[in-house]
Structure formats: structure tokens, C-alpha cells
């Protein structure tokens, strides 16, 4: 019963998403048809291509009550077969190159890719390492980059919505 009294006392804590931040970068134009199809119900498969887990911690915050990605119709799914979007983090390490490509191939069309974090775009601090194969867009085509190390959950959310052309108006 303590649980329910706590629920009642806390209430809804979701923060509205504003338009701030410059971290979102559109890598290429997403087809309008895709945006219309996936617009309101998106399954997201998160792929950790060798990241330090900093971005993962921020992504986990998205499922919490403060950032609540479900209110936009976004959902994390367990299998890429159920997914419409891949959320990729990390410089792609050599061991994760093939798995990342296989995950991309396992996802049914039409699909989107959002690469999260500086590592995903430029390999971040791991650039040039012997264990790194390249940035995410050298393995799979990327639609949106979200810069930051790690980016804030709100930025990640804006990046996902940008891919769907559903950014909150400025």
C-alpha cells in the first residue's frame, strides 16, 4: 500500500520536451513516406556497437517517467525484427561490425537509423584505436546523428523525433 500512496503523492512528473539544443544533426533526408508510416508508432532497437555505456545510461533515462518516450508513440523492442529504428551507440569496434550489419539486415524495411553520441559520428576518444572499425555510418546508413558525450536524454529524444519529422515547433 505504501507503493500506491507514493504513486498518488508523486503524480505525473513527465517534463514537456522543448526545442532547445544543437546536438541533433540530420545526416540525410528521410523519405516522407517512411515518416508518415512510422510517424506515430515506432519500435526502437538499441544497438551498443562497443560504447562505454555512457550513452546507454542516458538512453535508459528515456524510459523513465521524466523523459517518457512512450508518450510520443516510441517503444523499445527486443528484436530488430520488431523494430523500425535502430538506435546505435559507440564507435563501431571490430567485433561489433558484423553484428551491427546483421542487426541492420534483420530489421524490416522501411527503417531508420539514429546514431547517438560523439563516438557514433567520429569515434570520439577511441578514434584511431586498433579495436575500432569505423564510425557507424561507415557500416550502415545513418539518418540522424545526435552529438554529445554523452548527449542528454532530451537531445536523444529530439534526434529520434527529427528522423520522424516530429520535432516540437521552435
Amino acid at each position, binding site marked *: 500500500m505504501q507503493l500506491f500512496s507514493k504513486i498518488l503523492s508523486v503524480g505525473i512528473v513527465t517534463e514537456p520536451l522543448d526545442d532547445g539544443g544543437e546536438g541533433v544533426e540530420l545526416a540525410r533526408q528521410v523519405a516522407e513516406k517512411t515518416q508518415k508510416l512510422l510517424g506515430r508508432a515506432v519500435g526502437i532497437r538499441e544497438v551498443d556497437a562497443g560504447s562505454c555505456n555512457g550513452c546507454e545510461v542516458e538512453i535508459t533515462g528515456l524510459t523513465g517517467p521524466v523523459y517518457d518516450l512512450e508518450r510520443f508513440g516510441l517503444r523499445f523492442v527486443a528484436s*530488430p*525484427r520488431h523494430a523500425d529504428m535502430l538506435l546505435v551507440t559507440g564507435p563501431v569496434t571490430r567485433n561489433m561490425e*558484423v553484428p*551491427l550489419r*546483421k542487426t541492420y*539486415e*534483420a530489421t524490416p524495411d522501411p527503417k531508420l537509423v539514429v546514431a547517438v553520441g560523439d563516438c557514433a559520428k567520429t569515434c570520439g576518444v577511441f578514434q584511431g584505436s586498433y579495436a575500432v572499425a569505423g564510425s557507424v555510418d561507415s557500416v550502415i546508413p545513418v539518418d540522424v546523428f545526435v552529438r554529445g558525450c554523452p548527449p542528454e536524454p532530451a537531445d536523444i529524444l529530439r534526434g529520434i523525433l527529427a528522423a520522424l519529422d516530429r520535432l516540437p515547433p521552435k
Partner: protein
Amino acid sequence: MGTLVTGAIVCYLAGALAALLGNDRWGRILGAWGAASGAAISLALGMVALASGSVFSAVFDFPSLTGFALRIDGLSAPFLILTGLVGAASAVYGAGYSAAYTGVYSLRKLGALFNLLLLTLTLQVMADNALTFLLLWEAMSLVAYLLVLTEHREPATIRAANWYIAITHVGFAALLAMFFLLSAGDLSAAFDTLRANAPVLTQRNAIFILALLGFSAKAGLIPLHVWLPMAHPVAPSHVSALLSGVVIKMGVYGFCRIVLDLMGGGSAWWGGLTLALGVASALFGVLYALMEHDLKRLLAYHSVENIGIIFIGIGAGLMFQSYGLMSLAALGFVAALYHTINHACFKGLLFLGAGSVLHATGTRNMEEMGGLIKRMPRTALMFLIGAASISALPPLNGFASEWLIFQTLLGGSHIPEPAVALMIPIAVALLALTGGLAMACFVKAFGITFLAIPRSHAAEQAHESPFSMQAGMGILGLACIGLGLTPFFVVPVLGRALAGLDRLAWETTVFSLTLPLNTPATFGSMSSPLLAAGLLILLGLIPLALWVIGANRRTRVGDTWGCGRIAQTPRMQYTATAFAEPLRRVFAELYRPTKDLSIDFHPESKYFVQSIEYQSEIHPWFEKLLYQPLIGIFHRIADRVRWIQAGWLGLYLTYMLVGLIALLVLAWWTP
């Protein structure tokens, strides 16, 4: 009908002769023809008997064998039908299957014995006096024993055959004693006389117990079932189909004939004991089947389970009969008979399918199979039909008979004594549990054997069965579907099988597509054909609806999703042992599984594993608690008595002399 009987006998004998005299190919084919045509005639015989309701009888007097009497009445007919159906399918199948034995084992014996087995089975249900019954019973057991010994160079076969013949003869001894009591010493008295005298016999309970003992040994009811999972897997597959499909039903037939027909039912505890044994068999059968990964042993344990279900129906019927609830009793017996025919069909089909798999891959071990559906599509489809039938899935035949048995048990609320009536919901619950577990087991059996990727080289090289084997399976597959879609027809016809059984009149129902039950105790209805039609319509409407809404019809073929792993090997799939593991844990108290894990490390480093061997066994309760002590007792007695057999010829001659003198003295003393 007399001509049909003669025709059947002639066909079987001709088939046996052809098998004995012909060369490898023609003997096999003509023997199969003889068996198949004889079986077809038996089928026709059974259908004529049920349709016309007339009774055929004949008495033969051979020079040294007086009183060989045959009689076909309503109760024989369903068993003739199932003998004919399974016999014909097995014969056709065997024509192709036994080709694998050419040059390895004797095809002549196989073909001849197969025909003889069918002959004895057909005549068994026509026996009209104790002598005929017992003679045919023993002949059937011996021929079956010889057939089980076909692959006699395997040690497992010899062991299995020994167990089979031992337990079958224990049953035979019980039957002999039972018939002596029942016929008051006159074994050649016709069953009519026995029926008339039965109500006044004093040892009715003893007769019942002996009958239960004798017939459950043949049928494979707990605890006399241990030979079944040993003998049925080692026999050639078409013989296994016949053994599981027909021979064990002779136990059911005998029980029905003696307890239902001749004795006319009895006290309530008869029904209660039968019901309890049936429930125990059903539950133990399926629980042991779940842990098997030898395909044919799994099927053999399922035979134990289904015999249990049949005896649940019979037991419930006996209980209702003793309380005077006649329409419910009739329902119970009809449900049991229906399940008997259904089980013969789907178990026969499954054994033939397992035989095809064995023929194609050379192994019975499920853990080495996989992916066979792509290499043997028609066999896989047939096996799927059999698996769906035995899992009692609508609209196939297993569901129709299990539904009837449930409806019978639901009438148990009308039993006047609450203590007894409370047995019924427990029986209902355990029957439902076995149904669910059977489905689990067959998802495992079909899924591991046929789906996914081949787990061994043998499975990769599998080939589809030859046409005769497919045809044999096809016959039974069609029978399963047909029997499942027409319960409204089959049930009233089986009701006629009970005609002539005292007071168990079956009310004729109006012909309709549903199967309405209007007994005073319960009413319910179910319509298999409408259900099947509905499901088919829906199966057609759904793609149509998808097309209407403009659903995306693109399909791309890719790798199985394995979390992005580089490659997929067959070892990465689920195994049969792993599939059954949750249930092994749930029923761990029963199974008492032992685990043996041995890991081989790489000689240079303990961090690399070269091989892992995992072995798990379940506790054989019946062998440990019942059979090993009994066998131990017999061994000890034999040890004590061994001194008689000293090995000296002179001693044996002395024994004979002493015995002769004793007999002469006895003869002189008693006038």
C-alpha cells in the same frame, strides 16, 4: 458375412504363403497384398456387422480340436474395423519399408508372420468360447513375439522380447484362471452360456480381478506396462504400428467382452479401480513420454497414456452402470470405443511416420534429427496430422473422443455417494493435465524432429519415403481427418456396438451436423464439421482481409535473428532434452532425475573446453519397486531349488522312476 470371413482368412493365408515362397521382391509385395486385402475385408466385415446389426456365428469341429466357435456381434465390429484400417495401412507401408531388410533379416518370416498376426487378430474378436479365445490369444502373443524379434541381432531386441513374452504369459495365466472360474470348468461352453450363468457365479470379484490383470498385461495398463516401451520401438515400424494400434486394443476388447458383456457389469468399485488405473496410466504414460528422446519409445509411452484414457471411459461407464445411470454408462463405453478406434488410427500413423524417419535417417534419436520437413515434406505433413490428432486438437479425431470422455465424466455429479463422486473431478483434472502434457510432448516430437536445422549428417542426407510408405500413412491420415469430422455419424453407429449388451440401449439421435448429447444427466453439443468449416473459412478470410486493407506483401529471406552472431550452427538450437527441462523440474519428485556432467578441458589450458557430455536419467519407479523385487524373489527361489538339477543323468532317471512308482501307487490306491 460368412463369405467375408472366409475371404479374409484366405487372403491372409495366401499372403503368408506368398511371403514364404516368393523371392525377395515378390514375396514382399505379394505378402503385403495378401495382408492388405485381408485387412480390407476385415474392415468391410466390421462395417457390415455394425450397419446391419446382424450377428454371424459359426462353429468348427476339427478332428482333434472340437468346439472352435466364431461369432461376430456388435462388440466385435469396431475392433474389426480398426484391425482392418491399421492392418491395411501397415501392410501397404510394409511393402516399401521391409525392402530395407533385404539380405539382412529374413523377409520370408516377416511377411508370413505379419499375415498370421493379422489373421489371429481378426479371428480373436470373433471367438465365441473360452477355448477359441485362449488359443487365438496365445497364437497372437507368440506371433507378435516372433515379429518383435525380427531384428534379432540387436541385444535390446532380445531383452525387449523376453520382457514381452514374460508379461504376456503372466497375463495369459491370469486369463486361464479367469476363464476356468467363469465357465465353471467347461472351456468349450459358448459365451452365451457363460453370459446366462454369470449373474449366479460366486467368485465374480475374483473373475474381475483376474480379467483386469490378464487384459491389462496385454493392453499395457499400469503397472503391467513396462514391456510396451521396450518392445514397440524394436519391432519393424509397420509391425510397431500394428502392435500399438491393434494388438493392445485386444486387451480392451477382452476386458469389454468379459466384464461388460459376459459379466454384465458389477459393483461400483470395479469401475472405480478401472478408472483409477486408467488415470494412473494416462498420467504416468505421458509423463514418461515427455522425457524420452527416442522417437518410437516416446510413441510407445503415449500408447500407455491413451490406453489409460480408454480405460477411464470404460471405468466411468462401469461406475455409472453400477449406479443405474444407464445412458451415461452407454456414453462412457461409446466414448471409450471411439477413442479406441481413433487411437489405433493416429498411433498407427505416428508409428509409420517414425518408421519413415528411421528409414531416412537411420536413427530413432530425436537429438540427431531436425530440418526433416524440408527433405521429407509429405511425411512431415502426415506426422503433423498424427501429432495434432493425438494432442486432441479440434477438429481432428482425438478431440472428438476426448470431448466425449469429458462429457461422460461430467455426468459424475449424478452419482449418489459424494465420496465416490468426488473421484470424478479429480479424474477430469488429471485427464485435462494429460491432454495438455501430450500436446507439449508432441510439439517437442514434431518440432525437434522436423523443424529447424538438421542436427547430424544423417538428418542432412534424409530423403522422402517411397510411395508405398506414403500411401500407408495417407490412408491413416485420411482416416484421422474423416473420423474427426464425422462424430455425429460415428457415435450413433458405435452405439449399435453396445446393442445386445444388457440394458445399455443407445437412444438413436436425429441426424444432424452437430453431436448433441441428450442424456438426462448432461447435455452439451459440439460440431466438428462446422468447426472445421469455420476454421477453414477464417483461414481463407484472413489473407483476403489483408489484401483488402492493402497490407504490405513483401517478404525478404534472411538469417535467423541470433543477436547478430556471426554464424549459426545446428548446436545453437534447442534440443529435445532442453525442451522438456521445465517439465522435468516441475515433476522432479516423480522423475528423480540424475545428472551426469563430464567436461573435457583442453590439455594446455583449463579455460578452453574441448567437450562436454551431459547425461540425465530418470528414475524407473515401476522397475525398481515392482519388477526388480519380483525378479529378485524368483532368482532366490531358483537358487534354492537348483540342487534338483544336479546334471547327472542317473539322477534324472531316478526322478522319473520315483515319479512313475508314485503315480502307480496313486492309481492303485484311488479307485
